[in-house]
């Protein structure tokens, strides 16, 4: 990028020389005018050069960050897709070799299962790469968090059909944040999905909403699962990170490890934060903080709903 800056400076220097020459011809004799115009041109060019290179440098840095992120993502994706690919390849080979119908069915099922897994990985991937762009373009409104959480919890009650309980604690007052309702729903769906996946049968997932000290919304999602091993806490929001307690269970199949990464990207996109921890009594706790929307707007929305 240094090259671009150099090119720009050379260009400006040329412009300066040209303007000096023109000024020289125009005024011919009055040297004072030549000196004045030269000084003006010099000042202007220095000013513009500084402004333009500053902007360009900033832009370049952002592009470079983006490029690095893309490269990391590409390498993670390649790695992540190789496991299902390995299963598919070996199952296909075995399908070719074995004759017993029972075994053939088994390998065909492995191929189908792994193809479905790759499909999920690929679509979630498209999702996560678009989040930044989407958040910028989507209309943000004041969303009452109480109602949104109640809806999400109800959907999960229906989905889990009694296997896991979903309890919601929310204050009387309605807390609102500025966001796209769909994106915010996705955050809590991913968190509840994660909590439900780790919950034992008959366990409860608790969602607690309260007003944070700075007036924003503070949401805690806790479960009665095995909790997060301390060594995994720092990586839990990493893309493709999924820790699989003991055996693969139903978790590893269902989750390509992008749900929490997506939740984090959205929450941070809205100027909030997300953290993972363990409750003293066991189980994982995810804490989401979202800044408050301006009260004026939130009242309007509340009045309408």
């Amino acid at each position, binding site marked *: 990028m240094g090259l671009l800056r150099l090119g720009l400076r050379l260009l400006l220097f040329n412009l300066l020389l040209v303007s000096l020459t023109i000024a020289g011809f125009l005024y011919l004799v009055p040297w004072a005018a030549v000196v004045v115009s030269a000084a003006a041109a010099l000042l202007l060019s220095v000013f513009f050069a500084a402004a333009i290179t500053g902007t360009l440098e900033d832009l370049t840095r952002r592009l470079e960050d983006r490029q690095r992120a893309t490269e990391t993502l590409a*390498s993670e994706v*390649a*790695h992540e897709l*190789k*496991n299902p*690919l*390995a*299963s*598919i*390849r*070996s*199952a296909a*080979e*075995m399908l070719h070799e*074995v004759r017993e119908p029972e*075994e053939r069915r088994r*390998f065909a099922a*492995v191929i189908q*299962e*792994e193809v479905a897994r790759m499909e999920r990985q690929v679509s979630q991937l498209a999702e996560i790469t678009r989040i930044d762009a989407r958040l910028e373009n989507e209309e943000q409104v004041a969303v009452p968090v109480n109602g949104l959480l109640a809806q999400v919890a109800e959907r999960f009650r229906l989905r889990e059909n009694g296997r896991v309980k979903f309890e919601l604690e929310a204050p009387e007052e309605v807390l609102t944040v500025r966001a796209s309702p769909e994106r915010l729903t996705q955050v809590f769906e991913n968190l509840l999905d994660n909590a439900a996946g780790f919950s034992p049968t008959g366990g409860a997932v608790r969602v607690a909403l309260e007003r944070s000290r700075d007036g924003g919304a503070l949401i805690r999602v806790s479960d009665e699962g095995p909790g997060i091993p301390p060594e995994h806490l720092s990586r839990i929001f990493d893309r493709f990170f999924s*820790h*699989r307690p*003991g*055996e*693969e269970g139903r978790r*590893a199949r269902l989750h390509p490890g992008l749900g929490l990464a997506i939740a984090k990207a959205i929450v941070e996109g809205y100027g909030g934060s997300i953290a993972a921890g363990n409750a003293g009594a066991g189980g994982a706790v995810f804490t989401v903080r979202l800044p408050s929307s301006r009260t004026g707007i939130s009242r309007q929305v509340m009045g309408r709903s």
Partner: protein
Amino acid sequence: MQSRTELVAVVDDEKNIRETVAFALKREGYRVNTYADGAEAWAAFRRELPDLAVLDILLPRMDGRELCRKLRAKSETLPIVFLTSKDEELDRVLGLELGADDYLCKPFSMRELVARVKVLFRRAALASDPSRREEAKMLRAGSLEIDGLRYTARWRGEPLALTVTEFLLLQALARHPGHVKTRQQLMEEAYPNDAYVSERTIDSHVKRLRRKFESRDAAFSGIDTVHGLGYRWIEAGAE
């Protein structure tokens, strides 16, 4: 189907890979135990060592590298095959002296894996039986002596500790000293059962092979890189 009694341990957290590998090896007559993580495998190995281990590198609870080190501390001869899913991972693992006997990249060919397992068992069996020596399978190129039956090589009379892949690459190169072998040709000779292996994989194995010679003689230049073409064995560089 031959009847064998050798016990193979397969350690991979991917259930489908683990079970398919187990199925393929059982079809060859091996006994197979499978484990989903490193700690579970190690708990079992402490009671009974397998005769050969197939390990994934990234394992929950105990990393494949650590498991390999622990296995090596218990047995210097037990054949170990690593499965890896990243080319970069391969570079990193190859850079460390873990003492594995072979590495295969995911998605690997099952036929290739089964072939490697057979070779490793043969190599292990013949290593403890020095009497058999088939001259027809011996190849000499200067100070290099290659035993195609045992999958072993000696240089200046001293044995080289080579993985099966490195051995196959060396054999392919040394068979025609001075002749350039393209990466494609090397691929076909080192992975006869595999349809596709990346060129980078060949490069990292060659790099590793070269390093093994250099650790004996820093001036070693027997494996020449021919830019844009491939590699060749140069006897003068390996005297």
